[in-house]
Each structure stands twice: as C-alpha cells, then as structure tokens.
C-alpha cells in the first residue's frame, strides 16, 4: 500500500513537472509576457474585439456562402436556359435549312415524259409532258398541306425564302439551277403523306395523266441535307415595339 501511494504521488508529481515544463517552453524567452493589470484589461478588450470580429466574419461567411449558392443556382438555371436556347436555335436551323433534318417521309422522283412519236417541239403535247416550275409549286403546296415539314429538291432545301423559278430547261431553287429528273425528299407525317401519294385528284395524278413519270416511295427514315446559309436580312428589321 505504501508503494502504491508512493507510486501515485510520483506519477502525479511527474505529470505536474511535465506540465510545468511544457507550459514554460511555450513562453518566449527574454520577454516579459506576464500581463499587468492595465495591459490585461487592454488584452481583454482586444480579445473581445477580436471575438466580435470573428462573430461578424462568421456571419459574413454565412451570408456570402448563401449568396454564392444562390448564384450557383441561377447559373444552373442559366445553363438550362442556354441549353434550351441552343436547342431552339438548332431546331430553327433545321427548319430553316441551315442544318440537316432526319425523319420519315416520302421520296418522289419526277421526270419529263417521253416524247410522243411525231411530236412537234413547242406544241401542247410537248408542254404537257415537261415539268414546269408551276407544277413543282403546286406539288409542294399540296405536300405541305398533307403533312410535309421539310422538303428537299435535288439537294436543295425548300424553305419560305426559296424561290422556285423557271430557268429555261432548269428549275432554279435557292439560286441553284436544277435539271430534271427531280428527286423530292419530303420529311413529315408519313401516314398523311402516304395517303396523299395514292389519293385521286392530286397534283401527282395530274402529272401522271400528262405523261410525266412520277415515282412515289415511302421511307421510314431519311436525311435532308442543309443547303441554305443563315440569312442576314438587309432591310427587314425586328419590330422593337
């Protein structure tokens, strides 16, 4: 028991000695760090000021963190908005002919009919078996009514700014002179377009009756190439009102 009590006291004294030594080693040498009553009051005031500063800075951190999170949230929304706008731009580009379009539809091949035996050039028979720009305009008009969303003729996309103009033996579309035969690719509502392809009293039937060769083919998927450069209107301005 005596040894135990002695051991206990030895250990306790060792701990105290260790503590004294470690605490003393923290104090810079050659410098009186013991505060006087006056300096203690000043130090206490400084400490309280620092605590107040820390408290304010902590609040500021909270406020700035909240602000940052709010900005991040807005940024996420803006990213979404940007994505939406970009998708809309692409969509508009596709339907304005700036970008290629894919989808189901019809492919029509139109070719001038063969000349009849003994046909006089420039005669009515000759006129009837040749494809004219008016024929193409009527055909495109009917296709649009029957579900066409995008149309291409011999690689040229037909949009609202595309002209379809007779240019001697060619038809001019988007400034390009296209010779016969004409391959018309139409992307749109396949069921309506298919029904149109076999319906009576249509432009297709009219062309066939005139001796023009028309082939109609259903396509589950096809690609219409982009062929129009983005428009830069010179005179038309957006109404800012």
């Amino acid at each position, binding site marked *: 028991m005596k040894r135990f009590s002695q051991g206990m006291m030895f250990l306790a004294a060792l701990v*105290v000695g260790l503590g004294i030594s470690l605490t003393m080693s923290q104090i810079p040498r050659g410098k009186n760090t013991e505060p006087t009553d006056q300096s203690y009051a000043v130090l206490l005031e400084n400490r*309280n000021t620092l605590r107040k500063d820390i408290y304010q800075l902590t609040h500021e951190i909270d406020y700035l963190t909240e602000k940052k999170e709010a900005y991040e949230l807005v940024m996420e929304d803006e990213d979404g908005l940007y994505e939406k706008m970009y998708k809309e731009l692409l969509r508009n580009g596709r339907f304005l002919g700036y970008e290629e379009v894919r989808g189901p539809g019809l492919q029509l091949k139109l070719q001038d009919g063969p000349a009849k035996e003994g046909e006089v050039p420039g005669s009515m028979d000759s006129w009837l078996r040749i494809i004219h720009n008016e024929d193409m305009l009527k055909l495109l008009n009917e296709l649009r009514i029957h579900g066409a969303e995008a149309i291409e003729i011999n690689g040229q996309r037909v949009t609202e700014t595309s002209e379809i103009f007779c240019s001697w033996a060619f038809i001019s579309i988007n400034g390009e002179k296209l010779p016969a035969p004409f391959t018309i690719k139409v992307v749109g509502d396949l069921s309506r377009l298919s029904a149109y392809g076999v319906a009576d009293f249509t432009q297709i039937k009219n062309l066939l009756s005139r001796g023009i060769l028309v082939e109609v083919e259903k396509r589950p998927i096809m690609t219409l190439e982009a062929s129009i450069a983005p428009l830069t209107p010179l005179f038309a301005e957006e109404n800012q009102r």
Partner: protein
Amino acid sequence: MIVLFGLVLGVLLGLFLDVRIPDAYSLYVAVAILAAFDSVLGAWKAHLQKTYDSWVFITGFFGNTIIASLLTFLGEKLGIPMYLAAVIFFGGRLFQNFATIRRSLLAHKIKGEHHEEV
C-alpha cells in the same frame, strides 16, 4: 523526496520532449497544473501526517484539475477571469500545504523522529 524526484524528472522530460501545447489551451494547462500541484503537495502533507488516502488523492487530483479548467473555460465564455479564483484558492492552499510539510519535516529532523521518506 519521491515527489521532488518526480517533479524534476517531469520537468526534464518536458524539456526534451517535442510536445507543443496550443496557445489557446495554455491558460487551461497552467491552471490545471496549479490544481494538480496543490493535490500533490496535499498528498505529501497527508503522507507526513499519516492521513494519506489514495482515493482522496486521486479524486482530488483529477477533480481539482477538471474544476479549475472548467472555471477557466467558463471565465473565457463570460469574459470574466474566473481562473483567478482557482489561482488564488489553489495558490493559497499550496503555500499552506508547503508550510505544513516544511514544519513537519523540520519537526521530524529536530526531534529525530523516524519518518517515512516520500
């Protein structure tokens, strides 16, 4: 003597050990050391007076240290130097204990009475 030996050994160990107490805790450690030192001197005194009890010493050693540290902590939070209460109390008792030990040791020496070396 074993107490003095322990103290000296502890101080030497502290000098050679590369242990750094964070500045924020230096006051706590200082007050805790004072409380612990008071307990050690109290134990020495009790030993000389043959009233030593290990449990009283152990509970006093840790209890006083913890209470002194808690007072310091509370004082820090309230902005009042409450650790001074511990310093005054343990400091005063430390001197009292030391005086008792000194007198006891001297009495033993003068009277030539046998006492157990601690």
